[in-house]
């Protein structure tokens, strides 16, 4: 049964390499996108931390800044 699934009557190499290429492409794109997101988040947090208290208050008034800080841990899939 397992041998049949692997060999697929001689087509196994073609079928498995197609699926492997697809999954490898998915994984690579996911990893690149995730790393890019984490890099930007890290940069943002560092920059946010270096702001004066007055500027932090102004920044916090913008909803989107709050969202970025709040979702920093959520997006770490």
């Amino acid at each position, binding site marked *: 049964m397992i041998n049949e699934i692997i060999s697929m009557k001689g087509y196994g190499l073609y*079928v498995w390499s197609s699926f492997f290429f697809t999954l490898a492409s998915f994984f690579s794109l996911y990893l690149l*996108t995730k790393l890019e997101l984490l890099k930007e988040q890290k940069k943002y947090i560092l920059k946010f931390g270096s702001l004066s208290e007055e500027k932090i208050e102004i920044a916090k008034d913008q909803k989107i800044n709050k969202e970025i800080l709040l979702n920093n841990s959520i997006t770490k899939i």
Partner: protein
Amino acid sequence: MFKLLKPGKIFEISSKLTKYIFILFIIVLSIGLTEALILSPEDYKQSHSVRIMYVHVPAAWMALGIFSVLAFLSLSIFIFKNKNFFLISKSLAPSGFIFSIIALVTGSIWGKPTWGTWWAWDARITSMLILALFYLIYLLSWKVIENKDRAIKISSLIAIIGAINIPIIKFSVNWWNTLHQGQSIKILSDSTIHSSMLLPLFIMTAAFALFSLLIFLMKFNTEMIRIKNKGLDRL
């Protein structure tokens, strides 16, 4: 409608949705792979090589669909003068590019046992290669052009010009005598594929769509944080 397309609103939704989309993608992909590789029957003519169709066809559909959206949004940038659309287009392009590459590579792998060759300069395959090149040029335009306004204009033009290729890909099998097989799945009439093969095809398409959504949301968040990073400098 435009209120929903505001970057702030999309960021709020996308930040919350990402992890659920990821979980859903893994579940749908697992079911799709089981159906495609184990449960679905072999074809009476193509034998097990038909299974390649379960990654090749959804990838081609997604690549075409995403580029159509890119072209529509790019046209909207010029018509409505709403530059927020560029964020959506820019975030959609990477997954579209990957899908076009997957369609080309898996098509080539399928071609070897079926046609006896890895590649043929056939109308469908060549037009699909052109689509991948348009994706590449679109993505490169964002990397190369430093002025944001110029990058928006040029990348939008690339997407609009590239859209001419979409009907060529779609109808190439009807307009020319191609090595590539004709359309098997039709919206307006009966499909020539058995339901036992349609099921894994649709599940894999759903998985690919979820993957595209996942990458779109992550890319969109990255772009938004990048913009907000620059905003912090101006405080």
